[in-house]
């Protein structure tokens, strides 16, 4: 069963007296363990779709199903709990809590919710993920003492803290130089392999898209291509909404 299902999702933003139809009837499935790229030019609706998958925004029409739960009907408390349990977030501009050090930033999500793990248990797990993102020596530093790449590594570790099944990353490399950006994507890929976490990231940089094993390409709020690549690098198009056959020319 798919871990994420969007079916005929629309999103309309009010903009002054007019409306912006940011997402126009998008449907797709994401399988657990996928390393997925939502690709497309700026303004194509990537963030909007990621926000709806991340349950921080709701569709105007259509449904979003996360891990078997239709999110449309949940109240704010339930949706927040769902985010906490199932989802992890990585942001373009890192969004670390400036008053907390690296360890505390990663620990933060673990202190929310009803079942807070014991201190020793937290410590062991955080030390493991900090090792995984290669920041062992920066544990006690504040975010403003770190480079952009390092901050994004902290953000990845934070996203992994609650052992979510899905991690969402909206343009995680956009504020990084290309070399660092690639390293970040590679790190995400490595975590995806090591922990089996589903990663959904958006980007408008096609060199990064290459690493993904499933690419959903957007243009003007519609899916124009939905392709899954097998490990042997062969591409396989998946039936989706309009424009499935379009090529990359739109970028």
């Amino acid at each position, binding site marked *: 069963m798919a871990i994420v299902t969007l079916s005929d999702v629309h999103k309309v933003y009010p903009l002054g007296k007019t409306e912006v139809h940011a997402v126009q009837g998008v449907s797709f499935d994401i399988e657990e363990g996928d390393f997925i790229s939502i690709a497309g030019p700026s303004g194509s609706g990537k963030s909007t779709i990621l926000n709806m998958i991340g349950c921080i925004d709701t569709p105007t029409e259509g449904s979003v199903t996360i891990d078997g739960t239709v999110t449309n009907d949940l109240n704010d408390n339930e949706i927040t709990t769902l985010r906490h349990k199932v989802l992890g977030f990585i942001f373009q501009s890192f969004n670390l809590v400036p008053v907390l050090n690296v360890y505390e930033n990663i620990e*933060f999500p673990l202190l929310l919710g009803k079942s807070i793990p014991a201190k020793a248990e937290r410590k062991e797990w955080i030390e493991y993920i900090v090792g995984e993102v290669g920041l062992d020596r920066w544990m006690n530093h504040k975010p403003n003492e770190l480079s952009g790449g390092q901050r994004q590594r902290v953000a990845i570790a934070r996203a992994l803290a609650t052992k979510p099944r899905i991690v969402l990353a909206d343009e995680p490399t956009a504020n990084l130089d290309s070399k660092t950006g690639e390293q970040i994507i590679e790190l995400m890929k490595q975590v995806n392999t090591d922990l089996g976490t589903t990663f959904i990231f958006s980007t408008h940089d096609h060199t990064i898209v290459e690493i993904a094993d499933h690419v959903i390409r957007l243009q003007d709020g519609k899916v124009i291509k939905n392709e899954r690549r097998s490990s042997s690098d062969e591409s396989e198009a998946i039936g989706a909404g309009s424009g499935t056959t379009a090529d990359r020319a739109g970028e």
Partner: protein
Amino acid sequence: MTTLKMAIRNILRQKKRTILLGGAIAFGVMIITLVGSLTSGLAVNANRTFTNLLGGHIYVSGSEVTASGREVTVVRDVASLEEALLSIENEIEEIHFRSQAGGEMIFGSATEPIQLSGVDWDSETTLRSNLDLTQGNIADVQLEDTIIVPEPVLDALGVVMGESVLVRLTSITGQQTVGDFVIRGTVADAGNFGLASGYVSRSYLNGIIGMTEDQFQRVNIGLVDTTLVDSVAQTLESELILLGKLEIVEEEETGGPPNPAMMMQGMGFGFQVDEEDRWEGTRFVVTTINDTMEPVLTVVNLLDQVALGLFVVLLTITMVGLLNTFRMILIERTREIGTIRAVGMQRKEVRNMFLFEALTLAVVGAAVGMILSIALGAVFGAIPFGSGNPAFSVFLDGDTLAFPFNLGNVIVTLAILTAGTLFSAYLPARQAARMRPADALRTSY
């Protein structure tokens, strides 16, 4: 604990702003705490001064009408008094029987008004140890004609220790008499509202004002528990009423509580009583320290209310500042709020985090304010006031002000501060909690 940690770190994020706000809170709290402890110090000191001055907490005086129709202040019906006192037996710490007389001290051609308390030196051990003699030896009170007078009287008359003086007095039946005394001790003026009071032997005084050696005019009762003054006095009064021995004093007539000087003097001294108003045997009047304390407490309450008003005004200004600050914080941290909401913090937790931050600021400010007020109290409490204004010295402990810790005041202050803080931080906090995470994350402050 993380919430506290985050609150403190967030507060320290904008140090200038924090110092300004916290400083304003600290200042307000300091003022109200300082004034509160000053006024309770004034009340405590005044109470102690009056207790010493009047020799107890409850005073019973008795008067009767002589065959010739004159009212004289003397307790001859000791049996009734003793019976009434049985009802409050367990509340009494000490009890003293005194005589009183007002008159003028004469030395050469100079005269000075003085109130004399006739005391039984053998039983009044508390008085003996409380009388802080500036000159002379307390042991000399064994000599029957010893008089202990305030320094200012001595100076005014130009008389020195060891010299004999005359005191012109009125006897209980209203006759003019004169007594011989020898000055064997002086005290700093106890400040009986400017009226000097001297201490003499009761039996010796009785002889001068027309009473027998063992008679007395009033009973001064010191209580075990000073908070029970009113209820114990009431018990005693109702007991005396039962015995038919209480004189009902019309309070309206005298226009307010009796002043200490009047109380020391006793009520009647030889006035003719109208035929129809006369009574048989001894009639008693019960007064208490609280009657005397009433004007002091009025002033103290007024001061407290002014300080409270000032505190509320200061607090209101501060709270407007707090409200604006938290609105600003809300804008500054919009994206942060979006982040922590995305990560899984519930609305209520976000709201509480903001409220907690405001409360932490208030509590730290209050703690600083209270420490400052204690420090200032210690400084002001060390300033010697000397014997400048005798009326003012009623409020002093020795020659300094007292600043006792007033728990009630502190609790009221903290309650008002907490309510004000929660009230002004609530709206921004709720606004933060209600922000939609997607919108919050999109902002680029």
